[in-house]
């Protein structure tokens, strides 16, 4: 990690950090169901060694002190309070991504879970996004393997515990790159899946594995990236459900099928912050114009993603989000009113903007010696809200792509259509047993 090293004590003496622009949303909307918690998991080839993971967690926490924080409540804003505590090491439960006790004093906002041959880390989005989580996770795995007696001679792409951390890692990148720009166009409300919700606890996972090479080959056949291909399949599957509901004569509210696709802004702007720095593009198909063939969907989505992920375009979302936070009236509102306003705006507007969420964490690269010790890597996205109902996240590692659907409904029709489309395209899919 490049950047000017800073004294750890200076950071700890500072005592607190402002929440980044994205994190400000989560304390207001987080609940026992909408936990805003995501999980990264490594399936190892051998059972986890308790003594090694305990030591590794403590060492790694020292390298990432900005994660050793808890949520504080000020008069106007929440903030992150330094608590100097490593994450808890707990046993993995059946339901992933359970809520954090964010209001509990000195409670860490991430935790390490172990069971059998699995090491997982769960983060609440207040702390970081998928990129930050994987950077921490890679460092934790590296330390764990070393402490377990494995020889790891190479460490490229890994933040080593002994390196100093830089000021850049705790920077609020949203504010750093904020510039006043015209806001993005207003979005119409999206159509939502009509399925009945599961009884509590609602969350159900479908985990699958597929070959990256084969998927890449199919995507290249359409001259698109894996993300563009899978988003198109996602929207095409949504279209099938939309049309079948229309045929049944159901009362359709909204006619836009729209997927939220997070974009890691660190790939576009020169910063290596470990806090949230993602924005979104919202590919869509408008069903008022008629139904689409898959080729039409993929062509539209390819051009849409190419155009919308352009830095200038996506910066409009950054500008819009940050300018709300900067308004004087909003800044001086007491926190309890802010929370009510944010929760109401999210419920009334935010959650209705898109039909589904599709996250691609990309390809995780580890040194060969570490790669040999890991069976697979996986990400579980945060549980979707009651409107969106299904979310999907993928990560690829060692030529295998793991796809995880989080579903809170009684139906798995979306997953079925999605995976059937892939198998029809010649991609072999393995559905994995839930832990």
């Amino acid at each position, binding site marked *: 990690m490049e950047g000017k090293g800073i004294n750890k004590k200076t950071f700890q003496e500072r005592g607190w950090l402002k929440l980044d622009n994205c994190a400000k949303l989560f304390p207001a909307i987080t609940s*026992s169901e909408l936990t805003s918690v995501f999980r990264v998991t490594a399936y190892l080839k*051998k*059972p*986890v*060694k*308790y*003594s090694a*993971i*305990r030591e590794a967690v403590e060492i790694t926490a020292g390298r990432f002190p900005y994660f050793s924080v808890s949520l504080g409540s000020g008069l106007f804003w929440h903030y992150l309070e330094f608590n100097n505590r490593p994450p*808890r*090491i*707990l*046993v*993995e*439960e059946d339901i992933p991504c*359970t*809520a*954090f*006790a964010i*209001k*509990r004093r000195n*409670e860490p906002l991430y*935790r390490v*879970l*172990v*069971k*059998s*041959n699995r090491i997982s880390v*769960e983060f609440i989005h207040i702390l970081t996004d998928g990129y930050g989580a994987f950077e921490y996770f890679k460092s934790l795995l590296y330390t764990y393997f070393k402490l377990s007696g494995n020889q790891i001679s190479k460490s490229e792409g890994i933040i080593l515990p002994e390196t100093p951390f830089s000021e850049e890692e705790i920077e609020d990148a949203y504010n750093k790159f904020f510039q006043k720009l015209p806001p993005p166009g207003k979005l119409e409300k999206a159509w939502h899946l009509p399925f009945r919700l599961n009884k509590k606890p609602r969350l159900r996972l479908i985990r699958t594995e597929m070959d990256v090479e084969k998927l890449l080959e199919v995507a290249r056949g359409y001259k698109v990236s894996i993300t563009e291909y899978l988003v198109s399949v996602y929207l095409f599957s949504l279209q099938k459900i939309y049309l079948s509901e229309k045929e049944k004569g159901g009362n359709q509210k909204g006619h836009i099928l729209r997927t939220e696709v997070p974009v890691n802004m660190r790939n576009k702007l020169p910063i290596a912050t470990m806090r949230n720095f993602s924005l979104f593009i919202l590919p869509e198909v408008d069903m008022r114009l008629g139904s689409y063939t898959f080729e039409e969907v993929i062509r539209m989505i390819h051009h849409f993603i190419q155009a919308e992920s352009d830095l200038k375009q996506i910066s409009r979302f950054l500008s819009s989000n940050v300018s709300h936070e900067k308004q004087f009236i909003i800044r001086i509102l007491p926190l309890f009113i802010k929370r009510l306003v944010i929760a109401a705006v999210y419920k009334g507007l935010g959650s209705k903007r898109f039909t589904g969420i599709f996250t691609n964490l990309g390809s995780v690269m580890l040194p060969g010696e570490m790669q040999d010790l890991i069976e697979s890597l996986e990400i579980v996205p945060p549980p979707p809200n009651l409107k969106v109902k299904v979310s999907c996240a993928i990560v690829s590692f060692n030529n295998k792509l793991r796809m995880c659907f989080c579903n809170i409904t009684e139906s798995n029709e979306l997953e079925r259509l999605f995976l059937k489309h892939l198998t029809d395209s010649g991609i072999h899919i393995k559905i994995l047993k839930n832990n």
Partner: protein
Amino acid sequence: MNICSNCGVELEESLMQCPLCGMNSGEPVAGKTEKLNYPSDIINLHKREVRKHLWELTGIIAFSGIAVCTIVDLVIGKGVRWALFADVSIISAWLFLTFIMYKFRKPWMLITGLSATVLFMLLMFDLISVDKKWFIQVGLPITLALVFFVCMVVILYRYARFKGFDILAFIFLSVAGFCILTEIIIDKYIAGHINVRWSLLAAVSILPISLILFFVHYRMKKGNKLDSFFHV
């Protein structure tokens, strides 16, 4: 290799108990519940802490109220008279809150606690008041009658196959029965003989509502659950 039978992690040979889940050779170790082994344990711990803080806060408010009432009565009234009523009311309210906060999911303990609080409050009022004593003849029987009907409703609710409109109908019938018993007890205390009048009117008015609810439950909406029907 020493592997925990519950969480499957490898433990050092010298470790007899898994530090993660507290299991010892496949059996949970005594006192395991006090440890924080799972993510949901933290949430439950936080709930208990919040409840305790709330209870302590209500205690401070309640006992400040008692102190204020007693001192005001002492200073202005030159003795503790009306403040005794206020103090007993505040203590009873605090006990009420305590039982609701700590025994909410244990209906029998909650009913026992709340009835004991009501009886304590009425007995204290009776002892403090200088008028004719009424606790044994009026306060105690009316409270017991109320407890009886509440218990009946709870039993029905717990054992009913479909918790539907029949529960509401039974609550209405219980209210009617409670009104009649109350009038009987009061008549006996005041006049020495029983002359049931207003409670009968109340019961007759309630009866058709109960019958309609029973009809709706058994003939039209059998299987409809109250929580689904009234969910907001």
